[in-house]
């Protein structure tokens, strides 16, 4: 079974993002970029499926600027077999990404698509679901456990009320939650070897997709700064203050 793992290049999770002076977006100039952590979990899960003998080939795909190639190299170093870079300068929105992924799925016919439930830059949490809808295939989102037996994928999902288990027929789409696994560090020899693994270059036009943005961003601003709190001596004073603020009657 082939496994397709879409990975996104995003601002590194350790970096404190800064909003551009003109409020049009986050300043990415000279900012460290890495693989979306949820996608890293997806790559790890695919590798574990391969190690169990379930997956036969892992294809990593990224849609974005030329530098997204580095993200694909990371996936290859971790253990993906080959990669596809779909080059676009547009800030591709979830629907455009899902359409491109559909094109790749049609070509590659993977038994499983595993991707992060969301990317930490825009937190859209849409691509996996949209892809499932476009393909007309089952989806198991927010996975904390994935088991494959024959043509059935059993996914344990983290939902508000607890854990939900769903069974999907392959081909299926799985999106990963944080607790699914702990991704490995790519070993240094494997990073060197990743250079020689195949990486195909494509464009959205190859899949007949137009990535021009459909959404218009009006303004991006920093979250409001937290105000300093007030110390109270006891519960009575606390309730008094809350009453003044109109929070309790």
């Amino acid at each position, binding site marked *: 079974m082939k496994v397709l793992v879409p990975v996104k290049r995003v601002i590194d999770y350790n970096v404190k993002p800064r909003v551009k002076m003109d409020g049009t977006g986050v300043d990415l100039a000279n900012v460290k970029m890495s693989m979306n952590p949820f996608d890293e979990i997806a790559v790890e899960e695919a590798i574990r499926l391969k190690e169990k003998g379930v997956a036969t080939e892992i294809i990593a795909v990224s849609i974005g600027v030329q530098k997204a190639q580095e993200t694909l*190299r990371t996936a290859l170093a971790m253990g993906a077999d080959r990669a596809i870079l779909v080059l676009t300068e547009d800030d591709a929105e979830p629907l455009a990404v899902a359409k491109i992924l559909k094109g790749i799925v049609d070509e590659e016919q993977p038994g499983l698509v595993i991707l992060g439930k969301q990317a930490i830059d825009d937190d859209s949490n849409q691509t996996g679901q949209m892809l499932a809808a476009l393909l007309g295939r089952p989806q198991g989102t927010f996975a904390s456990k994935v088991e494959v037996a024959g043509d059935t994928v059993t996914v344990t999902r983290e939902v508000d009320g607890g854990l939900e288990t769903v069974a999907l027929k392959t081909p299926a789409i799985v999106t990963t939650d944080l607790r699914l696994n702990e991704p490995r*560090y*790519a070993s240094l020899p494997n990073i060197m070897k990743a250079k020689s693994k195949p990486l195909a270059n494509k464009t959205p036009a190859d899949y007949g997709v137009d990535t021009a943005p459909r959404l218009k961003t009006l303004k991006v601003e920093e979250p409001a700064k937290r105000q300093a709190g007030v110390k109270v001596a006891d519960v009575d004073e606390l309730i008094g203050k809350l009453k003044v603020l109109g929070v309790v009657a």
Partner: protein
Amino acid sequence: MDSETFDLLRNTVRRFVEERLIPAEDQVEQDDAVPEAIVSEMREMGLFGLSVPEEYGGLGLSMAEEAGIIREITRASVSFRSVIGTTVGIGSQGIVIDGTEAQKREWLPRLAAGEVIASFALTEPEAGSDAGSLRTTAVLEGDRYRINGTKRYITNAPRATMFTLMARTDQGVKGSGGISAFIVPADTPGISLGAPDRKMGQRGAKTCDVIFDDVMIPAENIIGGTPGLGFKTAMKVLDRGRIHIAAVSLGMCDRLIEMSLRYAMERRQFGSPIADFQLVQGMLADCKVDQLTTEALMNATAARFDAGEKVSLDCSALKYYASEAVGRIADRAVQIHGGAGYMAEYKVERFYRDVRLLRIYEGTSQIQQTIIAKAMLRAAASA
């Protein structure tokens, strides 16, 4: 190596340092040991193979690249570096540079994989930088050598599976000419270890005496196969080792400066962060100047080393300058931290003790000065 691949290597190591090594530092200090789980992770990551050529299963990094990786690793406690240090250094390099093809095939892949951990046994109770006074003997009996002697302060001896041992094979030759370098498996009968040394710092880095009592080693275990060339082999490896120590110094500089900046910006006195005070700013600026000068000298020296130039004098100058510079930086870092810097709960206290060794091992500052001056005088005399 192309810069994209190297960036990926370096970022991976940086992340490993941030997520695994730095959080384990206090435990290393407390237990006086690097946890086995971390040694395994370092092995899986391929860190033991930094300097082994790719054809023998290593990464085959250039000196500049090795220095870049070591600088990242030593942002965490320098004790982690010591786990791989002897293997990346002379343990593999003696064989890489002067070993026979059979020795390379037998040892390098296992060294690169971290299956074999090497330790370098040169220093003795009566001999350190003065190799001429080396007392450990290797006497040929048929096709084997009988080795007797004691080695001192041997880093990684407790976890070594192999020693690169320097012993006198020709009793008739005074000085360094009668010395040979042997590959000695650590499980050879007759080898015993002394009690672990109790040190000022670098807790978790293991050193002890190694005693060789009638240890029988096949003659073919001499590195390169020819007796009497051991010291020449060691000398070839030393240049590389000195650049490596400069990289260690720089990694520690980086961390000390990070810690000092953070503390100076957070700690408030007289109503403002101490970073606002010009006397504190002076110390911060001096740290930066020391860091930048060390970096410039290291980059230049490593580039010339990689280009195949003869840089022994430069390597000595670099090791001397870098280790003294990080000593100054550690001293200022403690000063910036004030009373807190003297307390064990702040990491600068540990760094202050740890950096002290850098001016001593791999040739003291005074030995480096001597090497530099002698090279200058030789050049002037022949001009």
